[in-house]
Structures are given as C-alpha cells and as structure tokens.
C-alpha cells in the first residue's frame, strides 16, 4: 500500500505538471490566436494550414498525455487497463485516419476531374485512372505523409514492417490534415483552396495498402456497394489548388467481383499478409516523437 501511495503521489505531481503545461507553457506557443489571425489575413490556404497544425497539435498533445499517463501508471494495479486503453485509442485513431484518407482521395479525384475537364466532379474520376499512377512520383516528392502519429507506426495495421521506413523517410514537420479539408470555396471561415504549394497531405497509409498487392482501380460510383472493381488502393494524386467541395467519400475498399457480402471477411482475411499483433512498446513514443 505504501508503494501505491508513492505512485499516487507521482501521478498527482504529473497531473499538476500537465495542468501547468496546459496553462500556457506549451511548446507550440507560436500557434496562438494572434498568428492564426495574421495568417487568416494572408492567404486562406495558410489559415487552413493553421487549422491543420492546430489539429496536429492536439493529436500530439493527446498522444503525449497518453504516453505520460501510461508511464506513470505502469506500476499501478490493473496495468492491463492502461495498455488496453492505449491500443484501443490507437485503433480508433487508425480507423479515423482511413476515413480522412479516403476523403483526401475523393478530393484528389475531384480535382483531377476538374483539372481534366471531366464532366461531373465525382464520377469523372473513374475515367482518369490512367492519370493517377503517373502522378505518383511527382506527388511523392512534393508531399509526404505527415500525420504525426508516432504510436501508429507500431501497429503494423496493414501488415509488414516495411511501411515504417516510408514514414521515417518523409518530411515530418509539415502540418497534416491540411487545407484539403478546410478549403472550402463557398463558405466557412477557413478559407478557399488557394494553393501555395506548402500543403502536404496524408497518404502514407496508401503506400501501406498498396503493399497488400492490390491493383489500383477506378473509384467507382459511390452508391455501388460491394460490387465493383478491384480493391483499390492507389496513392492519391493530390493537387493543392482548386480543391472543390467534397461531395462524398470515395469507396476505396470495393471487394473483388463475385464475392458476396458474407464472404467478404474470409477473402479479405487472406488477402492481407498476416498482420502482427500490435505491440505496446513504449519506447517509440520517445524515439519517434516529432519536433513540433
């Protein structure tokens, strides 16, 4: 009990520390409202960049707190609760990432359609399948995966360790979740989609998914459930300019033709390389933490 008491004291001190930390001694002090306002006056793209940095900050803050709490609580009873919570939060984050990535891709698709003059923002994407792969190289140079989730790299969600290298090689300090979500020509306070070239996007997980061995396919009509095309995952071809309104999320994960709904699980199971169990290593929190 005495040991527990000592640990409890540590937790209390940590929380006080966190509270002080929140009360203004944050490392991201430059991202206060003044700079947000100034940037809003400059270009709308950088306001969305500010929003993206804001979101990024929060994600990192949440992760940091999670890490610190877990470090402290390691000795407390029910350590499994902490570990499980970490894994579950990461799983939710991973899933969220897939939603956002698909939104990116849809936006990208629409931009391709818009740029290529195809009729009808969304459906036109399918016709430009050939264009998508060509953009890979260029896009890869300009944009990198920038979703700063150090713990997620441990999860091997889509199998295989090689994906970690991709993450490591890429420019990390730029904001994630950028203006493509916020760039909204018509309304909203976060400005239109002016491209300034400094808007990298998340697409690291597309690379991972590609390693599943799926051929890129066209993005079929959104309301065609479970029927069309191959399982797609090409890297997104993303432009920074002229981001249009996001009509819907593209359906990346179409099944292979001929698979009924009930069979989806088995087939999908086989298609992916055997995933490793997420390992709740704690060291990576520190070694892979980004510089803000």
């Amino acid at each position: 009990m005495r040991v527990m008491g000592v640990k409890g004291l540590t937790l209390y001190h940590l929380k006080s520390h966190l509270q002080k930390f929140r009360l203004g001694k944050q490392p991201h002090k430059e991202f206060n409202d003044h700079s947000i306002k100034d940037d809003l006056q400059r270009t709308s793209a950088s306001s969305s960049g500010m929003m993206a940095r804001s979101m990024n900050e929060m994600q990192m803050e949440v992760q940091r707190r999670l890490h610190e709490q877990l470090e402290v609580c390691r000795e407390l009873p029910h350590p499994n609760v902490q570990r499980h919570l970490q894994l579950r939060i990461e799983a939710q984050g991973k899933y969220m990432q897939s939603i956002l990535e698909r939104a990116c891709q849809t936006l990208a698709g629409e931009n391709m359609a818009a740029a290529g003059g195809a009729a009808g923002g969304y459906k036109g994407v399918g016709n430009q399948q050939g264009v998508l792969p060509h953009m890979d190289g260029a896009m890869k140079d300009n944009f990198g995966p920038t979703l700063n989730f150090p713990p997620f790299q441990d999860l091997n969600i889509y199998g295989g360790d090689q994906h970690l290298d991709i993450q490591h090689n890429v420019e990390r300090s730029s904001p994630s979740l950028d203006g493509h979500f916020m760039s909204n020509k018509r309304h909203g306070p976060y400005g239109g989609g002016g491209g300034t070239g400094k808007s990298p996007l998340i697409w690291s997980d597309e690379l991972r998914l590609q390693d599943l061995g799926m051929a890129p396919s066209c993005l079929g009509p959104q309301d065609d459930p479970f029927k069309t095309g191959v399982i797609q995952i090409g890297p997104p071809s993303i432009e920074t300019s002229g981001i249009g309104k996001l009509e819907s999320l593209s359906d990346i994960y179409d099944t292979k033709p001929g698979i009924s709904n009930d069979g989806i699980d088995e087939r999908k199971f086989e298609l992916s390389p055997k995933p490793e169990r997420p390992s709740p290593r704690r060291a990576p929190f520190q070694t892979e933490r980004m510089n803000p």
Partner: protein
Amino acid sequence: MAMATDNAFEVDFYSNSTTTSITDDSPACTWNHWGSPVVDWDSFSSDPDDFQDLIESMMDDGTGFELARVAHETSNSVSTDTMVVDEETNGDEDSKGLRLIHLLMAAAEALAGDNKSRELARVILVRLKELVSHNDGTNMERLAAYFTEALQGLLEGSGGGHGKHLITNGPHHHRDEHHHTDMLAAFQLLQDMSPYVKFGHFTANQAILEATTHDRRIHIVDYDAMEGIQWASLMQALVSRKDGPPAPHLRITALSRSGSGRRSIGTIQETGRRLVAFAASIGQPFSFHQCRLDSDETFRPSALKLVRGEALIINCMLHLPHFSYRAPDSVASFLSGAKTLNPRLVTLVEEEVGPIGDGGFVGRFMDSLHHYSAVYDSLEAGFPMQNRARALVERVFLGPRIAGSLARIYRTGGEEESCGWSKWLATMGFKPVNISFANHCQAKLLLGLFNDGYRVEELANNRLVLGWKSRRLLSASIWTSPHSDL
C-alpha cells in the same frame, strides 16, 4: 459554486444567494481564468414569476440597456487570447457572461409568454445579437450566439434555427449545408479535444467484451453506426484477447435510414466497407450487414438476420455530439423490438439531462444552457489555444444541436429531450448488468488523459456518467434481457 456579482439588480433577484469573490486560488476557480463565469446555476431555476421582475427591472430604469452598453464597450477590449487574462479583465468577462445569461433567460421567458411579450423577446434578442459572436470572444459569448440564434428561430416560427438572421459576423449554419470536409474535420477535432465519443464507445465495448469472453460468434445490432468508429477498438480488443476462443467472428448489423439527403459523415455502405477493410487489416473475422428501418424509422425485429448460437448485442448510442437527432418513437421501437430478441447485452449511451421540474420552457432552456456551457468549457479547458478548432466543432455540431433541441423543447414542452432511456429500459423489464471495475478504471484513465475537470460517477451498478465539473453530461448503461441469466 460562487456567483460573481457586481450588478445591483442581481442582488435583488437572488436574495438568498451567496456572493463571494471569485479571485482565489482554489482549483474550483481555475476554470474561471479562461473567461467563463462561475455561475450558481441552481439559483437560476427559480419561479418563473421572478423573471418578470427581472424583465421589468431591466426595462423600467434602463439599467438593462445601460449594462448592455457597458458590456458592449467592454467586449471591445476583451482579448481573444484567453490565456492572458488578468484580474480586471477576468471580472469584466464574468460580468458580461452573466449579463448574457440574464438576457437569454429574459428572452426565453418572453418567448414562453403571450404575444405581447414576444415583442419584448424581439427587443432582447436584438440587444443580444450586438453582444455575441459565433467565432470570437469567450465561451459564454459564443454559446450565447448560438442560443440567441436558436431563440430567434423560435420567434420567427421556423423552429429549427435556420438562419435568416445573421448575428454580426456569424455565418449560416444549416446542418445540411455543412461542407463534408468541415464535418470530418470537426469530428476529428471533437475526438481529439474531448472524451465524449470515446467514453461512450469504450464503456460499451468493454462491457461487450466481458459479456462475450467465451463466444465464438458475436452479433451486434447497431442503432446508429454513423462512421463506424466504435467498432475499430472493439475489433482490436477482440484480436488481442487472450482468454476465450481466438478471434471470434464479429458480425455488425447497422440500421440504415431511407435517404434523408443529409449524409453527415458518410453512408452506411461506406461505413460497412471501412469496417470490412479495417477488420481485414487486423485479422478480425468480420461481416457487415444493413437492416433498413421503415420510412418512419421504426425498427422491425423481423428484418434482422439472426444466426443460431451467436451472442446478440444491442448497441444504442444516442446524443453523442456528432450524432443526428433520432425521434423517440424510433428509439423506442428499437429498444422494445430488441427485447423480443432476448439479447445477451444492451449497451445504451445517452445524454444526461437535468431534472425536469416545473420550470416549463424557461427551466428547460436554462438547463440546456447549463449543459452546453459545460461542454464548451470542457473543450476550452483541454485546449485553450485552439479557438478556431473549437469554433468549428461548435459550428458544425453543437450549434445545430442547440437549435434543434430548443425547438423541440419549445414545441413539446421538453418531454422529448428529457427522455431517460435507461429508466425506460428498467421499466421495460431489462435487467441491469454491473459495470466492472476494469471498465470503471478505463473510464477514469480515459478522462484523465483529457482534463482533470472531467469526472466519472457510478450512479448505479450498471451506469457510468461522464460529467464536467459538477454537470453530468453523458451516461453509459449496460443491460441484459429480462430472461437472461447473465
């Protein structure tokens, strides 16, 4: 809680309230430094007759307008960087916040009255609109902007907060018009900034895990799957489960509603595809089905496809901040239909509302104001520097909820909004299932990641309630069918 008072008429109004300084160092007051007034909410829920006195006192001697003028001047000097507030600014913001509350209350009272007082309501709302802004200022100012707009909607009879009336620099915010990416961004931010979504999901999921440790097949019927994120963490937990059969088969049936045109964060089909892909990525055997609700959103249990030997779970998430409104009849049809299926477990998450009392519309209005002020404060306390992010969440999710909720309260007298489904389940004969110690620990740990201001209470053996400071906000309860031997 103490109430800051520097206005004469407040002393008259709340004759039995305490007036203490708010400038001490006790932890209960630290949140005050972020511009939120420390309010004695109980004192607001008094006899409606008192409101008439308030209104008269405001109108007769011009005090109200004088205060408003002063507040207007003050608001120009209030820094939007709420971290750099000193004592004087602190007091001004608190005063202004309280003035806004009084004005809102007066407007609500006027609206609840006869036609003559509707004119009064109109006047008060005009004044309010000068003082508030959707995007700038303190929590109270932004919150008041949305409540003002909601009241304006009631006044004009549109009943839904549809914006023909702009509040200074506030934009329209029809729920339907929200840019899809705005909604996604707001949803992501909501999850990063607050534990509401995770609390509901994780508490339910932990109970599901515990109830199915030895099952090979699990079937979850999800009332409102939305984007499906609840099941990501459940799947992760299932694949890493050490006891019981490895990787039990998980089946999710999501209820779908015939096209409302508004797709919020995505269609059910998209959700299904995502879940299938996610399950595949972590090696979880999985299948996904839809079950259509009737056009009036009634649930018919016969439309479900059930498999012998599967553990049936009924999952009913309501009132999470990013959720759409669901009519009580629909929810009732779901839960009562569920009873006929003899489920292993029923997981219910719903908003926790204050006691109804006799306050009528004004009482419910003030309770709603209290509720959302706690939500706003909780977001700010965790991330005080992220004003723009919070404003987005407020615009996309909270503002429309406020407008819709007030409209329903106005029309139906608040009975709809205060439906306590957990009470209803108990009445229907569902049996409570204890929340485990591990589940409770998880909730505490989760809240601790966000802010000390959150707390979890175990209000019953089967019910955890998440609250901010002293305000209860979200309740998670676990049940089993009346005939189960769980």
